[in-house]
């Protein structure tokens, strides 16, 4: 079986198997087992991919397979991956794997919880492997919907409101996607039966006046889930209400669908309009970056902090994508991966801290370093990654973005870039603020000394993510080269003009 198909099949089977599980132990075992297999096969995929590339296989997309589905509409189940997709799949596998462990102690309707979580993951995998716009969109929505139940049932705080808002805003985005996708489908000059295949569409031209209509639709459509200002407000509420694993998966992976889609669909298919209109969105993303960071500075709820910082970091992803050059694209993908890992780490840690302190307001906590050294150190590492410390993934991503952004000489891009760069200072401010208030200082309460130390599953979750952050941070070359190689297709279309 094609390894990509098995990436969809394994979670599906896991979800099916979960339906027949009864005890919590079985549920945990199946979920963890399934996602471990998934993680392993993602690593195998990476290995195969690098092997192929090393063997001189220059094809843009590897492991392709195509099943005709709705031939009269030109819909077929086309799958295949390039370096970007491989990287995103790997990210997804890591995050879902750790997500399972981070939600080890869910005891309310645990079966349904894991099923929904895994369905969500299935959607994400499907999204990353599909080469057909229709299928891609199908998986996109599949990934978004379980979120409603996950937040609504297992969330906290104003969960119903948050779940509804999140779902509706994301679906609002996908509404724009429908229009954009169909627009692309009908206006490209494909001969014969029209097609949804991205690669084929990419080889055909779409009239510029049509591109001007559909580019904003596709870009905003994907941008909503990528937390594009001003469509980001689902993020703080959604993330703060969601249960741990869901926040992890959502911020860690789902938000990446936005950036990925913007890059591989919006920009790839509509390059001329992208070139023409990028400045508008550049302004928006520039605002996202600095605005999200500044808004984070004054938050006191840990999840809000992370949500707003995600707005800033994901804004950087879109910002880089709009720079329309290879280096910035590479940076964007790296940033997606890096942010995925570290935000998942943050949310996992927040969940773990919350389970002990029963609060997420930082000013109500303090001195955790003393009582929970392991988790605190993990938090510090996450924080350092977030503020772009060399040796951790954030640095690699951000620097690549900045170098890429600097390839534009005109004043507008320069100013935008410098504004975006200055966010690293603000990031440092809020990260250190949290560390100072939350982890350092005297132990806030005597009862803190009774906190259980980090449990084994918590350690698995955090350590796997930190390993990911470190691997990328210390040896970024293979990853960034793998991503770079896959960008030729997209960049070439831009040059064509």
């Amino acid at each position: 079986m094609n390894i990509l198909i098995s990436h969809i099949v394994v979670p599906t089977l896991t979800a099916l198997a979960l339906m027949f599980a009864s005890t919590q132990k079985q549920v945990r075992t199946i979920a963890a087992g399934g996602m471990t297999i998934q993680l392993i096969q993602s690593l195998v995929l990476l290995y195969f991919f690098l092997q192929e590339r090393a063997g001189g296989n220059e094809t843009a997309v590897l492991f392709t397979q195509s099943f005709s589905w709705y031939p009269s509409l030109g819909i077929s189940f086309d799958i295949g991956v390039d370096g970007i997709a491989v990287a995103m799949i790997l990210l997804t596998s890591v995050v879902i794997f750790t997500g399972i462990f981070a939600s080890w102690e869910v005891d309310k309707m645990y079966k349904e919880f894991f099923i929904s979580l895994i369905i969500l993951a299935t959607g994400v995998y499907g999204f990353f492997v599909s080469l057909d716009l229709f299928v891609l969109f199908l998986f996109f929505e599949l990934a978004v919907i379980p979120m409603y139940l996950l937040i609504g049932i297992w969330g906290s705080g104003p969960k119903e409101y948050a779940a509804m808002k999140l779902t509706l805003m994301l679906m609002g985005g996908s509404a724009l996607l429908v229009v954009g996708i169909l627009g692309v489908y009908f206006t490209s000059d494909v001969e014969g039966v029209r097609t949804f295949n991205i690669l084929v569409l990419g080889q055909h031209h779409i009239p510029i006046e049509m591109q001007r209509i559909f580019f904003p639709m596709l870009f905003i459509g994907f941008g909503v889930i990528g937390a594009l200002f001003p469509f980001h407000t689902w993020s703080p509420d959604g993330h703060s209400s969601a249960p741990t694993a869901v926040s992890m998966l959502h911020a860690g992976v789902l938000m990446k669908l936005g950036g990925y889609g913007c890059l591989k669909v919006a920009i790839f298919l509509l390059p001329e309009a992208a070139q023409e209109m990028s400045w508008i969105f550049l302004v928006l993303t520039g605002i996202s970056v600095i605005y999200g960071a500044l808004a984070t500075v004054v938050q006191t709820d840990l999840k809000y902090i992370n949500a707003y910082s995600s707005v800033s970091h994901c804004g950087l992803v879109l910002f880089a994508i709009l720079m329309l050059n290879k280096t910035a694209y590479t940076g964007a993908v790296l940033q997606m991966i890096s942010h995925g890992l570290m935000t998942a780490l943050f949310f996992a840690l927040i969940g773990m801290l919350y389970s002990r302190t029963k609060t997420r307001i930082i000013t109500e906590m303090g001195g955790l370093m003393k009582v929970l050294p392991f988790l605190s150190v993990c938090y510090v590492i996450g924080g350092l990654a977030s503020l772009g410390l060399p040796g951790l993934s954030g640095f690699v991503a951000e620097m690549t973005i900045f170098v890429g952004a600097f390839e534009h000489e005109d004043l507008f891009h320069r100013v935008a870039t410098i504004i975006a760069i200055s966010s690293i200072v603000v990031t440092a401010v809020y990260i250190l603020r949290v560390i100072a208030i939350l982890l350092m200082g005297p132990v806030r309460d005597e009862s803190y000394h009774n906190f259980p130390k980090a449990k084994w599953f918590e350690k698995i979750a955090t350590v796997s993510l930190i390993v990911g952050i470190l691997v990328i941070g210390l040896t970024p070359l293979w990853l960034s080269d793998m991503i770079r190689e896959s960008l030729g297709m997209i960049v070439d279309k831009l040059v064509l003009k």
Partner: protein
Amino acid sequence: MTVQELLLMRHEWALIAGVLILLVLELNFSEEQKSKSIISAVVIFTIITLLGFLPAESGSTFGGMYVTDPVRLLMKNILNLGVLIIFLQAGSWLQTKNNYNRVTEFYLLMLSSVIGANFMISAGHFLMFYLGLELLTIPITAAASYDQYKSKSAEAGIKLILSSAFSSAILLFGLSMLYGSTGEMYFSEVRFSNDLIQVLGFVFFFSGLGFKISIVPFHLWTADVYEGSPTNVTSYLSVVSKGAAIFVLVLLLINLFEPLRLVWQQVIYGTAIFTMTIGNLFAIRQQNLKRFLAFSSIAQAGFILLGVIGGSALGMATVIYFVLVYVFSNLAAFGVVIAIEQYAGKVNMADYNGLYKTNPRLSLVMMLALFSLAGIPPLAGFFGKFFLFTAVAASGFYILLFIAVLNAVISLYYYLLVVKAMFISKSESPVPYFQSDYPTRIALSACVIGIIVIGFYSPVFEYIKQLCLISF
């Protein structure tokens, strides 16, 4: 007149035969055996449905009064499937003490209404169309007031019969104008020429059909009638009656009213927007689930108009496909509503709070149905809706498409409200656990299978598209 020609009318003959058999059986059942007629009706209708799937030829008979082709057969078969499910779901209601000796009558009314639907679809003459329409409506108005001791049911009947009489009068006025300006009543011979009077006639005519489909502004009866009628009748109204009218609308617009294309495209453009939007706006404030489904079905009708507007084979195929999906989705939702109404007598949203705790299967079915209606993958509704969008995009109506997708988002909101009630909200006294009867379970399973399979199994759509291409 040859046997061959008579065989063209297979669906109708079978149904008429069914009516007669049921009548005879009814006369032979004693008071205590009345409930047997449920089984006999279901069996008979199963046979009728199966017969419908036998291969058949196309052609016309009775001098062109009656036409049939594979597409029409398919439409009838889809409606038959819906009716079969409705029959299955009706059992528990018919066995209640107010109805036990009026079982057969219910089936007779339904069957005659289906006959009307079939004749309407196969009409080759305005008279046949009109008769079909009335035959579709009149028995159902009686069925709507079936719950004799409920004033709501009577009210529903009143509203339905008065509105439909009024709308058919208007339709007839339009027909008379069309007749006056063309002088022909056979579809095959009518030639339209885009005169103002034909525009007028068309709009009047359209309003009559729009009434059945619940197109805004001809929709106002819908919610009240849906709420008041026995739920089985409601599901019939929302699925079969509406489906038949949609089919006819598609057939007539694409073939008969082709010369007026520019006119009807404008009309549908406007009404589609209003239908979706108004349906949604009302749906979000409903507490009664039947009323809620009524407005949702209005919104769905608006979406269906998207497929109609292109006036292409693709559009026709998407409409038929969507109705097929809609049959399963809506009947699944109604099935759950019926089951809970029969068991607990509750139809309000708040009564569904915490349903998942006590009745997980029913909740899941309901969720799947609503998600399918909302167009969430991987359920069939997603495919149906996407294809409708494809059809409208194919005609280049991107603004309409945009409004439609926004409406799809709003619709998701209220579908999620129900999901929320079932899965998230807590209740002091949720509907206790119960086991529905076998026919209901069969019906619901069939719906669920339909919802899940139709989308994935692409030959369904490909087949429909093929047929539409041929008959176009």
